């Protein structure tokens, strides 16, 4: 702080600065207890950590239940008697459903079925005309598909 600032402070806050000076004198007497280096970090295990406590309590309860075999803690699997979910509630009407399953099914094929798929062949690139004024195009020859009558007559013969 510049000398001017110091002067302003001294003049304006002399009373407060006197008190702070005495506090500073107290502070100057303080010394670090021992040696700070090398640092010996104190490891503090935080026991009052609620999730840890809850997990430990749960683990202890399970352990005790297993070791001491508390009767109410272990379910009996060989218990004799009606299961609570097996009995229907009172007043429930039961209805028997009968299924009729056909047993006379003839799976033999009655006739021969033929399937024909017409094929389309695309000419190779050698037949393409690149010098066409309208641009690139395929020279595809005319394809004639046989009519349905012709196909059936050929199949019958």
């Amino acid at each position: 702080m510049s000398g001017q600032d110091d002067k302003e402070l001294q003049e304006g806050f002399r009373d407060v600065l006197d008190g702070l000076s005495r506090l500073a004198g107290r502070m100057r007497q303080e010394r670090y207890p021992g040696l700070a280096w090398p640092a010996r970090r104190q490891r503090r295990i935080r026991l009052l950590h609620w999730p840890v406590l809850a997990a430990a309590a749960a683990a202890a309860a399970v352990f005790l239940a297993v070791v001491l075999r508390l009767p109410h803690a272990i379910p009996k699997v060989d218990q004799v008697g009606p299961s609570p979910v097996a009995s229907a509630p009172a007043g429930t009407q039961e209805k028997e459903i009968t299924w009729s399953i056909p047993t006379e099914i003839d799976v033999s094929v009655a006739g021969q079925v033929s399937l024909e798929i017409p094929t389309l062949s695309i000419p190779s690139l050698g037949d393409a005309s690149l010098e066409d004024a309208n641009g690139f195009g395929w020279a595809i020859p005319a394809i004639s598909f046989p009519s349905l009558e012709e196909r059936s007559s050929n199949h019958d013969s």
Partner: protein
Amino acid sequence: MTLERARVSEWMDRASSGDREAFSSVAAAVQDELYRFALGHGLNRADAPDAVQESLLRAFRGLGGWKKGADAPAWLYGIAMNVVREFRRRRARDDALELDPDALRDRKTASASQAEDGADDLAALAGAVQRLPPRQREVVTCRFLLEMNVRDTAAAMGCEEGTVKAATFAALGNLRETLKDGQ
């Protein structure tokens, strides 16, 4: 700061080059200053030594980032300020002893000489310092209790020197008002 700044900075230069003994020398030279720094900023006697060790540990780990020729005390004050702020946030201040108003009041009855010292007034003043807004409290502590200059205070607080000056005037004004109200 009463320690020899140039020598400490020179040790820090050597420590950054791998000289561990040099860092031990730095620690021995600054440990009392850092302890007063921690106490002055409101840590109690149980936390203040831990804060000093934590500050030194961080300085040691940060040696790789140390720029040779820099001012070591200012750098260390910056580290210590961060540590002190973390400690204050983590634990409520319960016993700052020297600055604790009750502790100062108790000392008044300890001896006649201290009673003449006006310990009651000091207790009131220490309490008023602790009740200042954080920035003003840090400024007053650094400037007047730890007797640091404006440059070191600004370096420790991570702010401009102008901010320190403005906060100083505001803090002293607040302290005066508080003490007047208390009378």
